[in-house]
């Protein structure tokens, strides 16, 4: 599905709504150019999950794990500097019991997982607004419908 997001605040709100759908084991891939709003959306997901600690960019540390108030951990990954599935494996992420958000996903990620939700963010409009395209892959996302009240 496609969606237009007008402001950074709306991007955060979108993330927050998305979090309601997410379960342990879910993998969300966020793609989009520098400054598209990937971390902003993740901040919204964090807010929705009541994640502990500020959701900052994971670029420097590659992956940041946040405990959440009552639910599964939120793992926030920046794959920009990862070049293989082995390097991702080195990060020791507990995929089965966490909600994992990966920014800058690469081809090798598709080969390593069965299910994922891909959100592409397009910021080619010169305004603040962003075009989102959301697509689920694998059995986990079959028949899952999103109601973002657009």
């Amino acid at each position, binding site marked *: 599905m496609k969606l237009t997001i007008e402001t*950074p605040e709306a991007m955060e709100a979108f993330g927050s709504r998305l979090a309601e759908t997410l379960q342990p084991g879910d993998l969300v891939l966020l793609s989009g*150019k*520098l*400054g*598209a709003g990937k*971390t*902003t959306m993740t*901040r919204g997901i964090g807010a929705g999950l009541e994640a502990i*600690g*500020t*959701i*900052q*960019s994971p*670029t*420097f*540390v*590659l992956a*940041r*794990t*946040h405990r959440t108030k009552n639910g599964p951990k939120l793992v926030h990954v920046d794959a*920009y*500097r990862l070049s293989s599935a082995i*390097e991702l494996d*080195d*990060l020791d992420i507990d995929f089965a019991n966490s909600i994992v958000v990966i920014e800058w996903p690469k081809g090798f990620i598709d080969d390593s997982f069965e299910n994922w939700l891909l959100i592409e963010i397009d*910021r080619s409009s*010169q305004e603040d607004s962003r075009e989102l395209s959301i697509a689920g892959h694998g059995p986990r996302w079959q028949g899952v419908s999103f109601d973002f009240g657009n």
Partner: protein
Amino acid sequence: MEFRELTVADLPELMRLENELFPGEAWKEDSFRSELEGSFTDYFGAFENGLVGYAGLSSVPASFSSDVQTLAVISSSQGKGLGRMLANKLISKALALGSEAVFLEVRVDNNAAISLYSSLGFEQIDLRKNYYQPSGMDALVMRLAIEQPIVLGVESTCDETGIGIVKGNRLLANALHSSMDEHAKFGGVVPEVAARAHLEALKPTIAQALKEANLTMSQIDAIAVANGPGLAGALMVGIGAAKALAIAHNLPIYAVNHLVGHVGADVLENGTVSLPTIALLVSGGHTSLLLVRDLLDDVELLGETIDDAAGEAFDKVARVLGLPYPGGPQIDKLAEAGNPKAIRFPRGLSLPKDMEAHRFDFSFSGLKTAVARHVEKASDAGLEISKPDVAASFREAVVDVLLTKAINACEAHGVERLLLGGGVVANARLRQVAKIRCDEAGIELRIPRFSLCTDNGAMIASIGAQLIMAGRPPSGLGFGAESTLEVTKVQTI
């Protein structure tokens, strides 16, 4: 019996006792007032149905010594060991402040006092003729030597393996091994690479630090280690090494906060850290604004980045401009030839609407987007951009927002000191603008030397030493790496 620090509010009672105890030789009220108000003096009172005794200490920073200003007990309370208790208060304070000696003068005919001080370890070092006026009585000068703890500190939160050694407030060694070159090909720090590099660098770096300090492990009194915040894998290696050293040499170990370490670095530069202070810590991994009222007990996080750290923004903009990692020095170099006012890039979280929730927080995400857009727009239109102008304007935006918020924090909290720390302090423009803005605002600017600003082991050793000097118990061996350790937790027990 109750002991507490005296304030100006105690002045009337203090003067009543002073005049009663030292008729004709009593200090004037004005002198006592300035003693109580002074930054480098500490006065304690003993209370039992009112003030019954008092003692004062003066400790000038960087002198590494303290002087007993006065010590007095009213006659009806004498013989109860009150003088000894007050003297011990002063000695504890001198120890906590990093003094290596306490000096005092005492009347040669005051046998009770002389024998008290002697029993506490003071030795006579001099005699001053006609010291007390108008009586003309001679004074004995006495000195107590204090052995400050020698602490070895281990820093491994990111890509620097740092081993520092301090004695109290004195820097003895600061050895460093950086694995930055190994990360360059990955375009940033890789935790696994950093952890392995720490493993290889630790032993030689420890040896280098001991050599620098001209010490052997048997002369070390305690181990300190940064247990967070930082990269989990990197932290584990440093913590493992620190625990092994502590067990092998039977030494106490102190797990300390890396960010507070950056503030503690100033102790090694100055012999003390002047408090309260606002601290702006800026590096590849952190952008934090702290209010430090007490180094060990009162550190408050006023704000931090809500997206990219400042150093990270430099790296990402360097990527946009096609420059190699690390981006900071590259952009700095390019910016020298550029016009900082060429492009007005946005200042994150600086709008009136941000002041409520994010007054002291930082955001560099919008700035990064603006730079990317600027470059793309020019390229789409087939125009050449001036990379030096982009670099200079970007750098100006980062420096402007960092210092505007830091100085606002000083003003909002009535703090007249700003301390800079972290690797981004290497940025010449940041230091330059900081100096100008602080001068304008009447704020004292503190920037420790560069080797103490970047990640280093000496600052970790320094916090360990401060904890020991304040009489804090060591950490157990049960602590672990805490990658998101909050800044309020100075020591992990």
